[in-house]
């Protein structure tokens, strides 16, 4: 077999040389024979004649030789390709319509598939990445679904879970690199020594961290990413041991990572040891994961996720025996969950992505149905030709292969155009924010995608060929030839197939439109939600004051006071405040709090709440409304008064009947002495910390900044003009106060809210685009089929009009046909839309279970488009002149 392909390939490589060589060889034979005959005494003319006769037909010998070399199928294929190309060239309108349809439908699918492939399908870039897992703590009954893992968890699990080959802990952060005057803030990660070995990543140079480097006194070592090494050390091969200033302290370079290293969606450019104190490692800190510390592990070969989970559960149970917090944690529903790392990382966007792929696929189906109809119409135009050829002996294989060649040629060309469209589509998607998705920066347009495009095009070509081949083969031979004089009446079956396809198309489009409508409705509902504050005219920016320079709260308060004083002097600033976490920042960590006098019901557990430290006029700057009492002020912070403000959600939960003012609470999970308590002095509007669509009334507590300092702080300014216009002045001012402190993440609150809705907006926009394309396809499809029906029935219409039918009757007949198809399609589509809406529920926000208005609107738009598309053909039908129609033939 292989030999044959080799031989065939040699010939195909130089086909012309083969043909020339063959003629030359055969001619040589005849001439030699002629010469020999002449030598034996035959007269030259007679010799030539005899040589030719004995040789036989030159052409048929050539043909047999080609067949002997296995060339026939190829010659046939080439012939069919040329034939198909010629036919397509001769019908430019059809070809253009088909190519545009294919380019758009395949392009949309490729675009979405590129995203799905990069994010969901391709394994993480580590050896045997399928064995990587993440472990997080959950306290569902306390309203905390996910709380990372604690340092204590790490030290307790390291080397003690048999199913794990390695366990590591990490957290993201930022650091100020360089010396005063030329500092830069860089994304960093702090990782335990076994982080890289757990991932299965080896360093390009140097070494990983050691256990000795995990205390705050000894952690001044750094591992650089390849990019940082190239940019800041000019790819110095002797970089190991060189010094780098980080947050004002000297660190030694221990290693350099290989070029492709990328951990999940991390932007970290430098890695530091995850150092911790003995207190942080103690069992008392077992439950202080706090969403910033994350654990990964690698399953041993042969171990399963279920085994790992069972071992973690067993260990937790053992540890609980002498844990004083055990009862409370059990009440909170505490559990440690082992989940596959990749799946867990992309879980939030998986449904949306899959739905988008489904939407794109629906579009492709609509396009394919459209094409099938157009191809069927074309085929009926050629029915006679094909019937005659079959009668003359063309076999069924031939008819089938001809259909396949034609459709595949079309879909391959469309696929190439689709590839180009897909490349553009990916660029468009990144404008929608796909690169901010988990693993979004991995999205690539490469050979793999091109392969998928070609494969998809070929499969589509084969599928499209089925109805065409069926139509051409169906025993309508006699029919088609007989119908010579009637211009080839379409077979009833072919007509019902075409109508069935129109119905399917309308139904699919309705599902797509209804889906898009629901996403749009959901986005609208989400945007209508108040975030709990007046978001307009608020500028926010993040400043990380390093502990090394601002070691205690008086130093931090002094910094805040100076910052706020100077900022208030900026023109256009009406209020300024400081908070350690702004709403919608993406950090939704919750802290335990206990209310004095609140008795837990048997089913109730201590709850986690959002906790903030505020300074200056934070509430006024952010635009919170005061419900009761007063706001916290800079004065509270300066005096570190033990007072706090809670939000409505919090107040309603704990004191549904009474006033919250004067009540006492503790910033811990149990009640201690009154000296540690905070007195509630005010109640403010409820905040949507996690996102506008977050419906859990989590409750929030605001403490004076002095009592809840953090290395991060957000500066919040209420402005009279455009908030963004103040950004440059703000950056300059902060540099004047401390040249080492850059301002990060400078955004207005309006922008933050808009950005937080990207998960709702992008699918809605995309589905909207798909819907518009689907409508265009429907218009083309309906128009094409109706026009064809009119053209086919010209004679019939002519006769009827000659017999006295009025133009309105003719027009009405075609409109009635269109309406019948539309109604059936929409009924089927409504059922599909209803099923889809139910399946999409997780993606939708506050959408009614039976969104009649949305469905009706979608159905109305489709009705409008498809009826508009049949106005022209039916009008044309009504204007057929009986004389002309009958005179044709």
């Amino acid at each position, binding site marked *: 077999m292989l*030999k044959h392909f080799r*031989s065939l390939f040699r010939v195909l490589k130089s086909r012309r040389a083969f043909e020339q060589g063959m003629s*030359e060889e055969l001619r*040589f*034979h005849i001439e030699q024979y002629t010469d020999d005959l002449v030598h034996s005494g035959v007269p030259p003319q007679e010799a030539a004649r005899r040589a030719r006769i004995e*040789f036989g037909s030159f052409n*048929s010998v050539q043909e*047999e030789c080609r067949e002997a*070399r296995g060339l026939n199928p190829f010659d046939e294929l080439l012939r069919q390709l040329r034939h198909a190309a010629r036919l397509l060239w001769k019908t430019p309108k059809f070809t253009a319509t088909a190519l545009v349809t294919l380019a758009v439908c395949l392009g949309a699918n490729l675009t979405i598939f590129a995203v799905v492939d990069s994010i969901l399908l391709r394994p993480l870039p580590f050896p045997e990445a399928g064995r990587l897992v993440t472990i997080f703590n959950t306290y569902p009954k306390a309203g905390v679904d996910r709380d990372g893992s604690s340092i204590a968890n790490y030290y307790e699990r390291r080397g003690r879970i048999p199913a794990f080959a390695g366990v590591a802990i990490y957290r993201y952060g930022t650091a100020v690199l360089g010396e005063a005057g030329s500092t830069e803030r860089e994304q960093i990660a702090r990782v335990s020594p076994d982080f890289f070995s757990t991932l299965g990543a080896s360093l390009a140079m140097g070494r990983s961290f050691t256990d000795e480097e995990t205390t705050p006194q000894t952690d001044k070592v750094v591992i650089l990413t390849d990019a940082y090494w190239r940019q800041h050390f000019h790819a110095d091969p002797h970089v190991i041991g060189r010094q780098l200033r980080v947050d004002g302290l000297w660190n030694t370079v221990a290693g350099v990572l290989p070029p492709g290293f990328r951990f999940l969606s991390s932007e970290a450019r430098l890695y530091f040891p995850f150092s911790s104190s003995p207190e942080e490692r103690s069992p008392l800190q077992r439950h202080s994961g706090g969403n910033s510390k994350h654990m990964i592990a690698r399953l041993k070969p042969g171990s399963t996720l279920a085994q790992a989970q069972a071992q973690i559960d067993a260990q937790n149970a053992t540890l609980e025996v002498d844990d004083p917090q055990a009862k409370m944690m059990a009440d909170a529903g505490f559990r440690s969950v082992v989940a596959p790392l990749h799946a867990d990382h992309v879980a939030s966007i998986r449904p949306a992505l899959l739905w988008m792929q489904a939407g794109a696929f629906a579009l492709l189906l609509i396009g394919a149905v459209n094409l099938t109809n157009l191809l069927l119409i074309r085929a009926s135009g050629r029915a006679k030709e094909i019937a005659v050829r079959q009668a003359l002996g063309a076999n069924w294989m031939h008819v089938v292969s001809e259909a396949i060649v034609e459709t595949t040629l079309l879909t391959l060309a469309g696929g190439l155009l689709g590839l180009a469209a897909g490349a553009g589509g990916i660029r468009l998607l990144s404008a929608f924010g796909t690169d901010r998705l988990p693993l979004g920066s991995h999205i690539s347009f490469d050979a793999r995608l091109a392969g998928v495009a070609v494969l998809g095009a070929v499969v589509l070509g084969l599928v499209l060929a089925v109805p065409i081949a069926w139509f051409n083969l169906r025993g309508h031979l006699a029919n088609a030839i007989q119908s010579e004089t009637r211009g080839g009446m379409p077979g009833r079956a072919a007509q019902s197939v075409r109508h069935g396809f129109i119905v399917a198309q309308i139904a699919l489009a309705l599902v797509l439109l209804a889906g898009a409508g629901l996403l749009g409705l959901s986005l609208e509902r989400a945007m209508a939600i108040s975030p709990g504050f007046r978001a307009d005219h608020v500028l926010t920016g993040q400043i990380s004051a390093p502990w090394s320079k601002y070691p205690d709260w008086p130093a931090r308060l002094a910094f805040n006071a100076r910052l706020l004083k100077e900022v208030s002097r900026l023109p256009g600033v009406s209020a300024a405040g400081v908070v350690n976490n702004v709403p919608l920042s993406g950090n939704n960590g919750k802290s335990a709090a206990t209310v004095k006098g609140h008795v837990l019901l048997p089913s109730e557990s201590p709850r986690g709440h959002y906790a903030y430290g505020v300074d200056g006029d934070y509430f006024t700057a952010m635009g919170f409304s005061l419900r009761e009492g007063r706001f916290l002020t800079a004065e509270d912070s300066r005096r570190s008064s033990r007072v706090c403000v809670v939000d409505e959600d919090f107040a309603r939960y704990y004191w549904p009947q009474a006033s919250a003012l004067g009540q006492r609470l503790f910033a811990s999970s149990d009640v201690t002495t009154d000296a540690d308590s905070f007195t509630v002095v005010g109640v403010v509007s409820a905040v949507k910390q996690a996102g506008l669509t977050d419906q859990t009334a989590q409750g929030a507590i605001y403490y004076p900044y002095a009592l809840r300092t953090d290395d991060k702080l957000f500066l919040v300014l209420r402005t009279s003009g455009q908030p963004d216009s103040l950004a440059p002045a703000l950056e300059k001012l902060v540099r004047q106060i401390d040249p080492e402190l850059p301002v990060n993440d400078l955004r207005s609150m309006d922008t933050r809210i808009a950005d937080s809705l990207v998960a709702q907006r992008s699918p809605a926009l995309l589905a909207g685009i798909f819907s518009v394309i689907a409508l265009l396809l429907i218009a083309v499809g309906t128009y094409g089929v109706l026009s064809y029906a009119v053209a086919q029935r010209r004679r019939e219409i002519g006769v009827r009009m000659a017999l006295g039918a009025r133009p309105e009757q003719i027009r009405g007949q075609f409109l009635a046909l269109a309406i019948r198809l539309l109604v059936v399609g929409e009924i089927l589509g409504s059922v599909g839309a209803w099923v889809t809406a139910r399946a999409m529920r997780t993606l939708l926000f506050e959408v009614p279970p039976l969104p009649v208005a949305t469905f009706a609107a979608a159905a109305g738009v489709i009705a409008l488009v498809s009826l508009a598309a049949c106005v022209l053909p039916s009008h044309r039908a009504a204007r057929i002149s009986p004389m002309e129609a009958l005179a044709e033939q």
Partner: protein
Amino acid sequence: MGKTAELLPGTLDLLILKAVSLRPLHGYGVLQRIQQISGDALEIPQGSLYPALYRLEHQELIAADWGVSENNRRAKYYTLTADGRRRLREETAGWNRLASAMAAALKTTPEEV
């Protein structure tokens, strides 16, 4: 020219392999050589020679190369490949077995039954 025999199906390939095994030949040469070694007893239809040559080349039993003929013309010369040599050996053995079996069968007299 003596009495000629019709070729049995499949024997043309074997004859071509045999002819080419003696020395490289062009197509016309193959024809002449077969007639020569069969003592002009076998008649090869000229037109069927080339499809057979092309088939054998396709199976890589013979290889073709352009060379120069006795009368200084460009001609395509065929040689036997290693596969072809093996095939020739097998087919010759097979043919001989068949031939001797046929001969023995046809020689049988009533007494031997």
